Structures are given as structure tokens and as C-alpha cells.
């Protein structure tokens, strides 16, 4: 009976298999699934990208990460600690209610009353607010406790909610008294069911089912340019093979992150196209410099060769970055000679290439007192970055060639990140996607001396320390004037590259593949945004 039913069903579905997809519908296969549609739940690329569809913030990062006006039309820093934002007065939420400064204040208060959150940008930004005033319903004046030059960049990441989702009296930025909120603060579930998911973005949430995907409908009230898509389906397909198969079979219109090795197949296929843009993600080598006796370095005299700049330079010279990009990354990467892409804020405009010269590298090793090299273990992930274990393998071979006998220990990310936090490694391959703030983001997190009070150097696992650099970087991150800040960051970036406390390898490229008739410009932050997918004339 069962079998017969299925047979009948199969016959039926074969007849209907080739039904054409409705126009103005877009189906996207995501490489990683958003864990919630609450924009203040967890700071993950997948979650942030979905939030961009349903909500808007005061500013909006464009594909090159420059901040464009969003709910705010303009902003300025009145002095080092005061920011004034002018808000749009023509915006309504997806439920028809009007947007004004109260919604913004409510949103900022919610980031401080967000029990279910796993961790977002919001809380640390709002903690720094001394006061938020509204001279009129469409003007916002924020004073900060500490100087924060990146205010527009940071506020562009805090998606604005509607105050209508909670019971309240008059809304004021008074954290002691719950900002005037009398009802229960909404948790992540209220958003996932759609009840509280009311925003001012280009789309409205129709359905979110964990594991199955997200359905979005066009927001007819959107204040910006209306998206061409009436409905968008986002389906999580974590394995790259099935994701590509779904594109080939026509189930999906656009897929994230096809494997670089599959691009030749996409090129050969009629009716498919792809786009590849350099991302902000740098792959780099981090060395244990702080400890005199490092656990995974094997030298005859027990010394730590990484403390010698000549050895670090030798390591850098031993690696043929172009070969890694061409052979391992199939060309979908760019050799890195600094830690952020050349066009980002605070980058060295045209950095000197880090040369590949294995003979000179061998000489440098000898000069540093290691004519016979030494032994080393390189630790890396095997499931976090594009082709990470192959890249690490090649790095180990390059180093072994100049006499540094390098063994590779590649592991899954959950183990790697925990062990790295515990400072268990001597030599590790990491990755970092620079976000707002450009150069500052990598430098303050990795290169600056670990200082818990200032909140800098949290990822400086190798204890690299250069007081001169620290002074410049600390000055840069509290300078509001953009020109001055850019100059200071460039200097800091140059110092970091000169001393090679970290060795940059390459920038990954992000790839999207799609069917003919579509076009996607791609984004450096690796977000897939349906409203930036356009139809081309067919």
C-alpha cells in the first residue's frame, strides 16, 4: 500500500515537476543559518544580514563599508563627546506606525535590557552613553562618557525597533527607570514568531522556521527604493555540494559561497553566472613572542626565535603568497601586504609588497643564530576559513624548505579557538574580518598590548608588545577628526607591518553564484542582501 502510494505520487510529481517559478520571487541558499530574526540577539554575519532586510538603522553600510544615511539623514560631532543625528520624518514601520526619536531611544534601552541576547554590539555602545536627548521628535543628541569616534559606524549596526512592541509610558533615556517601559521587555522568541519583528527595512518577515528557512515579503511602506522582489525565500544549505546542486537544478536563484573549485563548473554551465569580490577577511600568522619558552618551538638551546625580528622576517620571506593565491585559492584571494584591504579607512594606500626570497630568508635565519633552523608546530583550523588546512600545509612546507622544520596540526574550529584563547599555541594561522573603523579594528584587537581596562588587545594571544605602537593606536581610537585619525592609523598600520609581529598572508574573496538574468554586486562584509539583487534584461 505504502509502496503503491509512493509510486502514484512519484508519477504525479513527475508530471508537475517542471512548473515554472513565479516571477518576482527569489530563492537564496544560505551557507549558514541565522539563529534568530531578533536584530539584537547575536552578532553573527548570518543574523546581521537577515536583520538588514527587516530593519534599518540610523546609517547603512554600503557594499564598500562606507556609511550612508539610513533613518538619519545627516549627523555631526558637535564636540568630542556630543553627536547630533537628524532623523527622517517620512518613515513608517511595517505595521503602519510612525517612526520618530522615541523608537530610537526605546531601541537603545532594549539593548541594555536584553536578557535573551547572546552578545551584540549594542550593549557595549549604549553603555558608553551619558545621555540621549531629543530637542524635537526628529533630532537626537547623544553625549558619551568616553570619546567614541566611530559613533556613526557603530550606530549603523543597531537596528531600530518599534516602541509599539511593548507597553510603555513616556520614553526617555533613563536606564534606571526602564526608560519608561512598563511592560515586559521582548525576548528573542517574540521576534522569531514575528510578533515583535516590526521594522522599517525593505522587507517584512512572513515566516521564520529554524532549520527550514525564512520567508520575506516586500515592505510596501519602505522609505527607500522598493526592492524588485515581491517575495524572498532564504533556505539554509550548509553543505556546499548540495547548495551548488540546488543552483544547477534550478531550485535556487542565488547561492552563497560556492566552493572555489566548483567555479569552473559554473563557468562551463550555460545559464549560470557568479561574482567574486575581495572581502575584508585577512588570513594571517600569529606568533608567540611573549614567552621565552614556547610550548611548540623546538630549539637546541630552548630559546624562542620569534623574539628576533630577523626570524619573523625570514618566515615572511619564505612564503610565496602569490603561489598560495593561484594554486590553493584558485585565484579567489588577494596577496596581503597589510592587515586591511587597501581601500579601507586607515589603510596604507599602496603598501610595499612583502617579498618572497627563500635564499635571503635562510641567511636571515643564520644571522639570527639559527643556521640549522629549528622545529615548530603550526596550528590551524580545518573548517573555518576557505581552504584553511591546505593553506596551512603549504605554509608549513615553505618554512620547512628554509630549515624551519614545521609540523602542521589542523583541527576543528571549536577546539582551535578554545585552545588559542588559552594561549596553548606557539604559531597559529588565524583570520579576521575587519569591520567598522577599518584599520583600528584589527590593530586594537590583535596588535595592541593586552589591556583589560582599556578593552584593547583581547586577541593578542602571542603577547606582541610595542609601546610606541600602543601610544599611536590609543591616540587614534580616541581621535574624532577623521583626517587625523586616518593618518594616525596609517602610521600604526605601517609600524605593525614593519616589525612583523603578525604576518599577513592573503585576503579571501567572497563568491556568489546565480542564474542568468540576475545580478549581485557582492559585498565586502559578505552579507547577502536580497534588495541588492537586481534583474538584468533577458
Amino acid at each position, binding site marked *: 500500500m505504502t509502496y503503491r502510494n509512493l509510486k502514484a505520487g512519484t508519477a504525479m510529481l513527475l508530471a508537475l515537476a517542471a512548473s515554472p517559478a513565479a516571477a518576482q520571487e527569489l530563492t537564496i541558499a544560505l551557507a549558514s543559518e541565522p539563529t*534568530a530574526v531578533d536584530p539584537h540577539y547575536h552578532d553573527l554575519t548570518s543574523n546581521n544580514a537577515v536583520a538588514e532586510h527587516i530593519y534599518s538603522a540610523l546609517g547603512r553600510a554600503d557594499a564598500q563599508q562606507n556609511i550612508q544615511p539610513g533613518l538619519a539623514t545627516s549627523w555631526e560631532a558637535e564636540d568630542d563627546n556630543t553627536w547630533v543625528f537628524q532623523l527622517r520624518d517620512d518613515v513608517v514601520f511595517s505595521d503602519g506606525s510612525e517612526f520618530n526619536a522615541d523608537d530610537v531611544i526605546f531601541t537603545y534601552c532594549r539593548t541594555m535590557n536584553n536578557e535573551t541576547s547572546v552578545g551584540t554590539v549594542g550593549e557595549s555602545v549604549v553603555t558608553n552613553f551619558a545621555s540621549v536627548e531629543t530637542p524635537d521628535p526628529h533630532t537626537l543628541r547623544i553625549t558619551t562618557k568616553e570619546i567614541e569616534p566611530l559613533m556613526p559606524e557603530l550606530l549603523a549596526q543597531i537596528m531600530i525597533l518599534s516602541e509599539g512592541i511593548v507597553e510603555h509610558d513616556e520614553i526617555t533615556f533613563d536606564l534606571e527607570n526602564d526608560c519608561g517601559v512598563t511592560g515586559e521587555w521582548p525576548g*528573542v522568541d517574540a521576534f522569531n514568531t514575528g510578533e515583535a519583528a516590526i521594522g522599517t527595512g525593505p522587507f517584512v518577515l512572513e515566516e521564520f522556521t529554524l532549520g527550514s528557512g525564512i520567508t520575506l515579503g516586500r515592505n510596501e511602506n519602505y522609505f527607500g527604493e522598493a526592492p524588485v522582489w515581491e517575495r524572498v525565500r532564504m533556505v539554509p544549505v550548509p553543505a556546499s*555540494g548540495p547548495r551548488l546542486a*540546488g543552483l544547477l537544478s534550478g531550485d535556487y536563484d542565488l547561492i552563497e559561497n560556492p566552493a572555489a573549485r566548483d567555479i569552473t563548473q559554473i563557468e562551463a554551465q550555460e545559464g549560470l553566472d557568479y561574482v567574486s569580490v575581495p572581502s575584508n577577511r585577512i588570513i594571517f600568522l600569529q606568533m608567540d613572542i611573549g614567552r621565552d619558552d614556547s610550548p611548540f618551538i623546538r630549539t637546541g638551546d630552548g630559546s624562542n626565535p620569534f623574539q628576533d625580528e630577523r626570524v619573523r622576517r625570514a618566515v615572511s620571506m619564505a612564503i610565496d603568497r602569490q603561489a598560495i593565491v593561484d594554486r590553493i585559492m584558485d585565484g579567489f584571494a588577494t596577496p596581503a601586504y597589510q592587515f586591511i584591504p587597501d581601500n579601507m579607512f586607515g589603510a596604507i594606500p599602496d603598501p610595499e609588497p612583502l617579498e618572497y626570497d627563500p635564499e635571503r630568508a635562510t641567511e636571515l635565519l643564520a644571522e639570527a643564530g639559527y643556521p640549522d633552523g629549528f622545529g615548530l608546530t603550526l596550528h590551524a583550523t580545518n573548517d573555518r576559513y576557505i581552504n584553511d588546512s591546505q593553506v596551512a600545509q603549504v605554509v608549513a612546507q615553505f618554512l620547512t624548505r628554509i630549515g624551519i622544520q614545521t609540523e602542521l596540526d589542523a583541527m576543528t574550529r571549536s577546539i582551535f*579557538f578554545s585552545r588559542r584563547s588559552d594561549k596553548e599555541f606557539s604559531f597559529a594561522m588565524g583570520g579576521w574580518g575587519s569591520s567598522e573603523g577599518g584599520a583600528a579594528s584589527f590593530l586594537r584587537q590583535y596588535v595592541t598590548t593586552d589591556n*583589560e581596562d582599556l578593552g584593547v588587545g583581547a586577541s593578542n594571544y602571542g603577547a606582541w608588545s610595542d609601546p610606541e605602537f600602543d601610544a599611536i593606536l590609543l591616540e587614534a581610537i580616541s581621535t574624532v577628526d577623521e583626517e587625523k585619525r586616518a593618518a594616525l592609523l596609517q602610521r600604526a598600520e605601517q609600524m605593525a607591518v614593519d616589525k612583523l609581529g603578525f604576518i599577513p598572508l592573503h585576503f579571501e574573496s567572497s563568491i556568489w553564484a546565480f542564474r542568468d538574468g540576475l545580478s549581485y554586486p557582492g559585498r565586502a562584509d559578505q552579507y547577502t542582501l536580497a534588495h541588492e539583487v537586481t534583474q538584468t534584461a533577458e
Partner: protein
Amino acid sequence: MALFVLQRLLQSIAVLFAVSIAIFLAVYSVGNPADLLVPPDATQAERAAMIARLGLDRPVWAQYLTFLGNALQGDLGTSFVHGRPALSLILSRMPATFELVFWALAIASAIGIPIGLWIGLNDGTRTARAAMTGSILGYSIPSFWKGMVLILIFAVWLQWLPAAGRGETVSLLGIPLSFLTLDGLRHMTLPVVNLAIPNIALMIRLTAAGAAEAVHQDYVRFARAKGVRPKRIVRRHVLRNILIPIVTVLGVEFGSLIAFSTITETVFAWPGMGRLLITSIYQLDRPVVVAYVMLVTFIFVAVNLLVDFTYAALDPRVKLVENMG
């Protein structure tokens, strides 16, 4: 019978308890979930706050006692990643997996048992030997590869069926089901076939072996000598006698497929429990992994109990033995 049930229940509770300790220790020894949860640009203070919030700064025994106390009240913890109770997260994925496994095993039995029976009754003929050899193939092809080949043939080349996902579902008594809609059926076909193939092979081999042995038994010879019609011999005597091992294996297969059809679910992006498990392991979502293993243990224990009871129904001798004991 009551004593038998009570005894089995006590054993089951002991098993659940032992498993909870083992899995808790195993999960605890791997990595630090906070390192995967905090944003990469988190400051030292933010990381410490996260560790404290998740209770990871407490010793393992204290964490276990909290878990045990909550578990006894039916709370298996809250997912680190999703912020939802782990059990409800897993249960919300269960219908999808259940449906997949149910249809896969139904098809496997419907196809495998008749073929197996035929092979067993025609033991030694060339066709039977060939079929037997062929079934090894079905059993030993890796699931991942087979899934990709199915996708390649039916989704990419022929474009008859969708490559992945669950498609449209219909809610029946609050449970979302795929097989009631055409779109759902289309999405279900490939993963069901992928899961069914090794089980068809398993059923064939099991039934064939049993039947081949049974036809030489005295009771079959006797029945034949008595002049019972061959069809009746097969139905009444052969099949009923060989069903016991088949039901056992079906029970075990059902349990293990519910728990670990991970590969099929990953290949076909099927939103079931197996895929939840594998992502939770990668993300070090400890509460979900622990709750999952506890739930699976529970299912296994329950299925084994059911199988024991089915034995009793199928084979009167089981009751007899138990009465004597």
C-alpha cells in the same frame, strides 16, 4: 508480566543516569563554548561576562548537579546558540526526521521482505545468488556519496525532483507533515530513497537467510508432508517464524535512524534532528548535545521495550519462558 515490565523500567532508569554522566563529561572536555559565542572583537570583559552568564566558570560537578536537578523537573537546559529550551528545539525538529525514517523503513520492508523471501525459498539458484551479492552493494555504498549521486541524476540532470530542503508542509494535529502535499512529497522522495536503499538490502539479506534456514526445519517438512499448500506454508510457518529477528532489527534501525540520519539530512538539507545535532556539536552548544543524547537514549530504551513486547505477541514461547522464570 508486571514484574518483567518493572524490572525493565528500573534498568532503563539506570541506563539514562549512567549515560547522563558519561555525556556530560565527554561534552565538557571539548573546547570552551564562550570562544565561539562571543563576537570576535569582544573585549576581555565581554568574554568573561559570557563565560559567567553561561555558568562555564563553575566546576564541572556543580554544572552537572544543576543539570541533573533541572533534568529531573523535565528541563534539559537552554541552548547557548538559540536561547530556546534544548528539548523543545529538538522536538521541533523531530517530525521531519520521524517522517523520513518512517517512510524509509516502510519502503524497505515492503520491498526488502518479499524479495528476501523469494531468494530464501529459491536458495542456491543463480538468480538468488546474484540478488544476494547485489544487496551487498546497496548496503555498503556510503550514504553521502549515494545522496550526491541521487541529487546529480534526479535533480541536476533530469530535473525531476528538488535537490534539497523540506518543501511545503501541512499541519496535522499541530505536527507539520510533508507527505500530504505534492511539493512535500517531491522534496521527500530523494532523502527517503537514500535512507531506504541500505535498509532494503538489510531486509533482503535478513529475510533470505531466515527463510533459507526455515524451509529445512522439521515443521515445514511436516507441513509439506501433511499436504499443506505451499503458499500457506510460507505465510503461516516460514514468515511468522522469521519475523522475530526482522522486527528486532527494524526496531533498532528505527531508533538509530531517528537519532543518526545525520548524513542524509545534511546532504539533502533536511531540517531534522540529525542536522541539528551536527551543527550543535560544531558550535559547542552543550545543552543541545546533552539533551539530544539523553533523548536518543530514552528513545532506544523505549524502542527496546516495545520490541520485547512485540516478541511476546509474535512468539508465544517468550511468554512461556517468562512465566517459568
